[in-house]
């Protein structure tokens, strides 16, 4: 028999070759040497770091799962939970904006860090829901629905967006303010725009979302903001 090739030597490491190959490997010093090299490499292969899940994890999964077992599948990602946090965010933003207006006066009990954390969390929440809206729109099919949910969500996001944009700008956070500017233009267009049955309108909207990689930027900023907020 001829010598084993790289593929056979590699698969032998996993025990995925036939008896004939294994026999050759035992008898042929040259192949054994090459196999040893591969074995060393694969033995030393970096371990895949998987986040830990403790003993209670199974129960947590089950608790999350249980309410869904009877429920019907969702039409889309746009459902109640995309709509509800708006209020909470608005309160947080109003709170923060108020703080900012009197930033020179020290408010006892609330640290600057706590305030910033609230803002960042509200911001990341806002960006996340904006992302969902943009994804929904990017996949919307003309005439399939009237984009009612999308428009309602856009309307609530517009108000929130304006507050956040102003807050970011007055805090000197230009990258975020600029992104929120871009986002606001699209949100306003969706909120005021005609219903989704006109393909041309929808296409124009999609083009708008795609220009400047808006969705991508929102996604990155959302992740960054969340991370920053968690660090505080």
């Amino acid at each position, binding site marked *: 028999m001829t010598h084993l090739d790289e593929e056979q030597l590699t698969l032998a490491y996993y025990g995925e070759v036939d008896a004939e190959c294994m026999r050759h490997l035992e008898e042929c010093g040259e192949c054994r040497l090459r196999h040893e090299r591969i074995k060393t*490499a694969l033995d*030393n292969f*970096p371990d895949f770091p998987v986040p830990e899940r403790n003993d209670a*994890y*199974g129960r947590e999964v089950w608790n999350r799962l249980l309410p869904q077992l009877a429920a019907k599948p969702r039409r889309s990602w746009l459902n109640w939970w995309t709509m509800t946090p708006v209020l909470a965010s608005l309160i947080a933003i109003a709170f923060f904006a108020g703080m900012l207006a009197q930033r020179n006066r020290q408010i006892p009990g609330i640290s600057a860090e706590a305030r910033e954390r609230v803002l960042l969390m509200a911001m990341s929440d806002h960006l996340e829901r904006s992302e969902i809206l943009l994804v929904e729109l990017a996949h919307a099919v003309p005439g399939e629905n009237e984009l009612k949910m999308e428009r309602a969500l856009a309307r609530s996001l517009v108000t929130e967006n304006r507050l956040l944009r102003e807050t970011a700008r007055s805090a000197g956070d230009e*990258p975020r303010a600029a992104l929120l500017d871009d986002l606001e233009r699209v949100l306003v267009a969706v909120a005021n725009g005609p219903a989704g049955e006109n393909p041309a309108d929808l296409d124009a909207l999609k083009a708008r979302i795609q220009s400047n990689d808006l969705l991508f930027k929102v996604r990155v900023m959302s992740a960054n903001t969340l991370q920053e907020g968690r660090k505080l």
Partner: protein
Amino acid sequence: MEWTDSAAAEQARQGDQRAFGVLVERHSRSVFRLAFRMTQNEQDAEDLVQETFLKAYKQLHRFDGRSAFGTWLYRIAANCSLDLIRARKNRRERQTTLTSETTDWLDRVAAPDPSPERLARSGQVASLLKPALAQLTELERTAFVLRHYEGRGIEEIAGVLGVQTNAAKHSVFRAVQKLRRALEPVAQVAP
């Protein structure tokens, strides 16, 4: 009472939600591990755990008990993960061409702070592993993750991927070659 997997699956099939709960609690961690290894993303993995059990629940009537419940579930999890990876890839391909303006923007907003351990050698290898895995085709990556990290047999992997055994073997081999090359600068794994 301690149910065996097959007894619990049988009970669940007859409509006993509690029995299904036992299976969920028992297998959640291994499903999470697989999903994380497949997607390399914690949130995606969490979503996939939910999706896997939801699908399993809906398809319980198809589970005939000939294979172990764990194996059956595993196949569902692997397929869900694969679907997600494919969907992501399609979406990425539709919008991969970043303008230079966006790249600049990224440079401005991204401010990574290297922690000491990230600079350590083991950290370096681990941080190289992710992009290295990302370079593989989805077939290669799945086959490799299932074979190398999850210890699954080639037959099963071929079944999950819906390919011939030889194709699965070849994918594992290609993955090993590419990864050894990618990790060469920092690890003793070079070809």
